[in-house]
């Protein structure tokens, strides 16, 4: 689904370019420059009400609106998929209010807004990844007071976070946190990578693309400049590990991507499929086949695989 628009001036004239007024965009842009200058630090900003409910990416949408220009090509993903409600509605929002080109191809996008996944394809220097963030403060469930978490960040007082991870180990034998896994940015700030699976954490480290994070309800913006050290918190005897699967993707046969489990019936049959729809379809176009692809002979399409931690 490729829409190309040549003249940005044709954008829906009832709104300013990219919906937000210029003064709001300037305020967000100032916050973004500070966020890039202080990697991992949460910059407060005067978040506006957007024409969508909190939890649907109001923070990410405001960041995208402040960044996007008429020559950009926008991709929006929700849990890796381009075709889910949230992704489709945000893509249409900017197609309508900014008249920008949109794409589902990771490689063709200049701005990628994401809810909870990082594309499998390696991002480039000329791309910007915008995250929708529900709760920007990694310490919030440990310390509910903003005044205190501010102090903890100021003093680099992150012992509590290690205690939380340690409690995981003492209870489960391993660190059971699987998403929103806290990271240390540039050896200074502990940051919430937003609820991406921890599978995606290593991709943040030294990524070539600029990463911007927007939390609309909590009114915080933070950022990771390109080539910035991002380390997942762990212990020497319990090093950080990502999820792995015994199965391959049922459609494209990938063994290196993040897989979603799909329940097929009430007899225990299920399949695994790439969460990144563009990655999966690109592999299928290149001729890769998984056991449950419709090209494959019937009878081989079963899977008893089990997600392994």
């Amino acid at each position, binding site marked *: 689904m490729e829409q190309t628009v040549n003249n940005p001036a044709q954008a829906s004239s009832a709104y300013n*370019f990219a919906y937000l007024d*210029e003064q709001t*965009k300037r305020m967000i*842009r100032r916050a973004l420059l500070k966020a890039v*200058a202080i990697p991992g630090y949460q910059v407060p900003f005067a978040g506006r009400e957007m024409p969508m409910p909190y939890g649907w990416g109001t923070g990410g949408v405001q960041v995208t609106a402040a960044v*996007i*220009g008429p020559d950009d090509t926008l991709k929006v993903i929700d849990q890796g998929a381009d075709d889910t409600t949230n992704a489709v509605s945000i893509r249409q929002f900017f197609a309508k209010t900014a008249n920008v080109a949109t794409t589902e191809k990771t490689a063709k996008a200049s701005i990628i807004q994401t809810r909870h996944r990082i594309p499998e394809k390696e991002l480039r220097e000329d791309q910007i990844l915008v995250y929708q963030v529900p709760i920007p403060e990694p310490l919030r469930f440990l310390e509910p007071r903003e005044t205190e978490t501010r102090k903890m960040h*100021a003093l680099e007082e992150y012992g509590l976070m290690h205690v939380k991870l340690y409690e995981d180990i003492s209870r489960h034998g391993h660190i059971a946190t699987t998403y929103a896994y806290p990271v240390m940015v540039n050896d*200074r700030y502990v940051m919430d990578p937003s609820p991406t699976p921890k599978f995606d954490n290593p991709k943040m480290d030294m990524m070539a693309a600029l990463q911007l994070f927007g939390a609309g309800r909590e009114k915080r913006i933070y950022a990771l400049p390109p080539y*910035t050290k991002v380390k997942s918190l762990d212990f020497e005897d319990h090093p950080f590990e990502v999820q792995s699967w015994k199965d391959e993707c049922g459609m494209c046969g990938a063994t290196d991507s993040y897989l979603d489990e799909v329940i097929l019936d009430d007899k225990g049959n299920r399949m695994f499929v790439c969460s990144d729809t563009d990655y999966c379809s690109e592999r299928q176009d290149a001729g890769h086949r998984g056991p449950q692809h419709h090209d494959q002979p019937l009878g081989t399409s079963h899977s008893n695989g089990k997600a392994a931690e």
Partner: protein
Amino acid sequence: MIPQPRTADLLRGFENAAFDSNAVFRTLLDAMAHPGRIYDLPLDVPAPAGLNKSATAFLLAMADMDTTIWLSPDCASNAANAHLKFHCGSPITETPSTADFAVARLDGDLAFIKKLPIGNAEYPDQSATLILQVEDISNKADMILQGPGIKDSQSLSVPGLPAAFHAWRAENHHLFPCGVDVIFAADHKIAALPRTTRIEIR
């Protein structure tokens, strides 16, 4: 009291507020994300006396009634004041310690830079951005930069950068997460030096 100029004497600002400010911001965002990398100013704007084109474009894109601007004595002029008040609506201050954006020339007196706000440990973002108007920026290896945004290392040369600047900058880097971010603004070229960048002087 600054005499109010007649509207006819004012220079124009951006031709299209939305697209022009976006283009300038994207250049600044790229520059800030890639410290020391030199970017061309993406458009041409008339600059009032005292300011060059890059500094003017920066202020038109980023400043408004919520931000206070300080102009060093060698940048301040009636034309610059009137231009910024008309197009940005920004308050213009005489005291650098209250500035959000400070504009100065490299060949002027840099004693003020120690007075610029650096933020505090809880809100390091409440700091000033210094726009330093320079004659030229090049990739000659006078300075070797390292830090977030730089893959291996980045070379940068700003002719005429005095030792006092480097002394201040070394101190400023040490204050992280507090500190002042610097934008080097040549007439048509921009490079940024965020507080995270380490400088090795050759």
